[in-house]
């Protein structure tokens, strides 16, 4: 039996959010009467409300020295879990017991003020993260050295380059000495060299026997850092255990067999003046295309208010949730009339630049003016696969395309010719 002390113990933790809907427009006469009755009974009520569980009964234990990676698609409840563990918000139900001092790095540089010098910000940020003045005094030299800001430490941080800013911020956070460390994807900051340094620092912290909870979309870092993985899906733990197996399960939750995606219940983001309701794949029985085939699908959008200058943006991410590309349709700017539903047929024509792999497609609708107001986003609308062969089953060239090495974009060609020989 594992007799290391239990550092974190979650028991059936739930988090409820209340979402507002506009009243549904009834189609039948009796429906209209019902709505009228409802409006008379609650004259101030403008919305229907619905409960949404971002976390729906999450239980697990983490023992001292464990390094747990938490993975899951956007909206699976990762951020909510982090916010509850770091005590930014309270759970609606359940109980959590934690031992020792906890530090959460959900963002680097929280509370940094541009007018203050680097040093002043270190004291302020350190205090916000729960360090005492003596602790910061003792760590000051290490922080300055790690951040590489050197003699600029007494310059107001508003004059810092963004790289310096981030390095200093990370240096403060990483010099905390908690018993439990909770890290959100803050490592994706700075230049590559500094990222490397951050990961090394994290490994050091991990090796020193601290308990770590690490949330990321980057499977590579999870593999490097963690010895256990928890996969979340729709607010529940669907897997808890071995890293490789967990990543496999996470990748499998990426399902390419459906062709019709009902999005009416997606988490509302943006102004909601118009909402994305449905996506339907055209000409296909599953979401898999040959590398040289156009990707065609239909997006259904409902306008709650009249919206002008509406554009649809598509973006494609790989399974590590790195953006591969994003692009708005090049067509006309649409005007959507209030209470109407529209269907747009979309075609990503030159899919032959996407390398064979699995991808996640997102859709966003926004207003094409200086406000750039976003009406609605579905970050993970559907997943699809690009097959490495064409319709006649000829494999794509070059053979053995490995996205880890060759990337996700296959440019048509690059012309080279010798222009000089000496």
């Amino acid at each position, binding site marked *: 039996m594992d007799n290391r*002390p239990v550092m974190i113990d979650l028991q059936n933790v739930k988090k409820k*959010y209340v979402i507002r809907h506009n009243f549904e427009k009834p189609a039948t006469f009796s429906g209209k009467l019902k709505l009228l009755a409802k409006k008379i009974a609650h004259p101030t009520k403008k919305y229907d409300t619905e409960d949404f569980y971002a976390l729906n009964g999450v239980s697990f234990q983490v023992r*001292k020295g464990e390094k747990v990676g938490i993975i899951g698609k956007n909206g699976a409840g990762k951020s909510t879990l982090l*916010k*509850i*563990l*770091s*005590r*930014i*918000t*309270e*759970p*609606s*139900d*359940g*109980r*959590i*017991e*934690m*031992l*020792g*001092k*906890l530090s*959460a790095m*959900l*963002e680097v540089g*929280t*509370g940094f*003020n541009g*007018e*203050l010098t680097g040093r*002043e910000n270190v*004291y*302020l940020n350190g*205090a*916000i*993260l*729960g360090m*005492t*003045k003596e602790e910061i005094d003792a760590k000051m030299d290490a922080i300055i050295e790690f951040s590489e800001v050197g003699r600029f430490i007494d310059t*107001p941080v508003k004059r810092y380059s963004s790289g310096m800013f981030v390095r200093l911020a990370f240096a403060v956070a990483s010099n905390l000495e908690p*018993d439990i460390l909770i890290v959100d994807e803050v490592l994706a900051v700075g230049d590559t060299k500094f990222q490397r340094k951050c990961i090394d620092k994290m490994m050091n912290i991990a090796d020193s026997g601290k308990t770590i909870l690490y949330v990321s979309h980057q499977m590579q870092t999870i593999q490097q850092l963690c010895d256990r993985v928890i996969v979340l899906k729709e607010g529940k733990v669907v897997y808890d255990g071995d890293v490789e197996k967990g990543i496999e399960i996470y990748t499998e939750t990426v399902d390419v067999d459906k062709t019709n995606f009902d999005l009416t219940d997606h988490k509302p983001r943006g102004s909601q003046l118009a909402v994305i309701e449905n996506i339907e794949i055209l000409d296909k029985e599953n979401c898999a295309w040959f590398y040289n085939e156009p990707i065609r699908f239909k997006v259904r959008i409902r306008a709650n208010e009249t919206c002008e200058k509406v554009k649809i943006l598509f973006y494609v991410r790989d399974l590590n949730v790195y953006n591969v590309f994003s692009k708005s349709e090049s067509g006309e700017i649409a005007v959507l009339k209030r209470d109407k539903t529209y269907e747009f047929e979309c075609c990503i024509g030159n899919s032959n630049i996407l390398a064979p792999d699995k991808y996640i497609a997102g859709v966003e609708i926004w207003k094409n003016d200086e406000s750039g107001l976003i009406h609605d986003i579905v970050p993970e609308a559907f997943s699809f696969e690009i097959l490495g062969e064409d319709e006649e089953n000829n494999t794509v060239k070059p053979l053995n395309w490995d996205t880890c090495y060759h990337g996700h974009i296959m440019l048509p060609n690059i012309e080279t010719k010798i222009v000089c020989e000496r």
Partner: protein
Amino acid sequence: MKGDMMQKTVIEPNGHNMQYWKDLWRYRELAFNFAKRDVTVRYKQTVIGFGWAVISPIINMLLMTFIFGGVAGLSSEGDTPYYIMVYAGLIPWALLSKSLQSGAGTFINNAGIMNKVYFPRILSPLGSMLAFLIDTAISFGVMFVLMIIFYFLEGFVPSIRILLCPLVLVWVAVLGLFAGLFLSSFNVKWRDLNQMLPFIISIGQYVSPVAYSVSENFGDKWWLPLYCINPAVGVLETFKWCIIDSMEFNSLAFFISLGWTAVFIPLGIKLFRKTERTFVDIV
């Protein structure tokens, strides 16, 4: 190995208050850090820096003296120079209104930090209040200079009760802060309050005895007790009484203000605690 020596944290819906007060003590340094930040940032980019803490109350004093003493022709307390009387009203008024505003705006103005890090939220308005007390100390120093000037001009001598001033100022700041905390929870849900507050404060400047004397101008009116319901009246009257020797102690207003303070402190804490638990879900 030292498992049982480590501090245990329990997170539950509507968790215990004991833990909160323990955390408050553990994070206490943060209040001073916030205060230091506020003071540094406020004067850092200005040319005359701390000079503003001196100049702005003096300009206010000249303006209010002109409006109330000059245009409106109201009387001062006995033979106290009008300038001194106005200045003695402005010091607690500025402190009260600023504490009120920063208390009420806590959640909205600091949403960025509070969304990302946990600390007992009350430390943020507490820090701002400390910073305002520092500003007030500077204005108070300026009053000494004014008093010396008016000693030579008009032979003005302050009351010995001036020694009580720091105590009264802490009371003012506490009243403003907790009244603000009381409002902060409404502020999260109805932002209208945030828009209304500046109006309430500028109206307050006229309906509170900032720049005129209560006893000299309407001491005998039947509606005086109604006027004193305004929580600001008692603190302002008491502060002026500490400085002006000839002034009578306005015990009615004093006890009403004290009563308001006794109401706002528990109510402010209660509502603030309730809001801070989950306000990030709303903001």
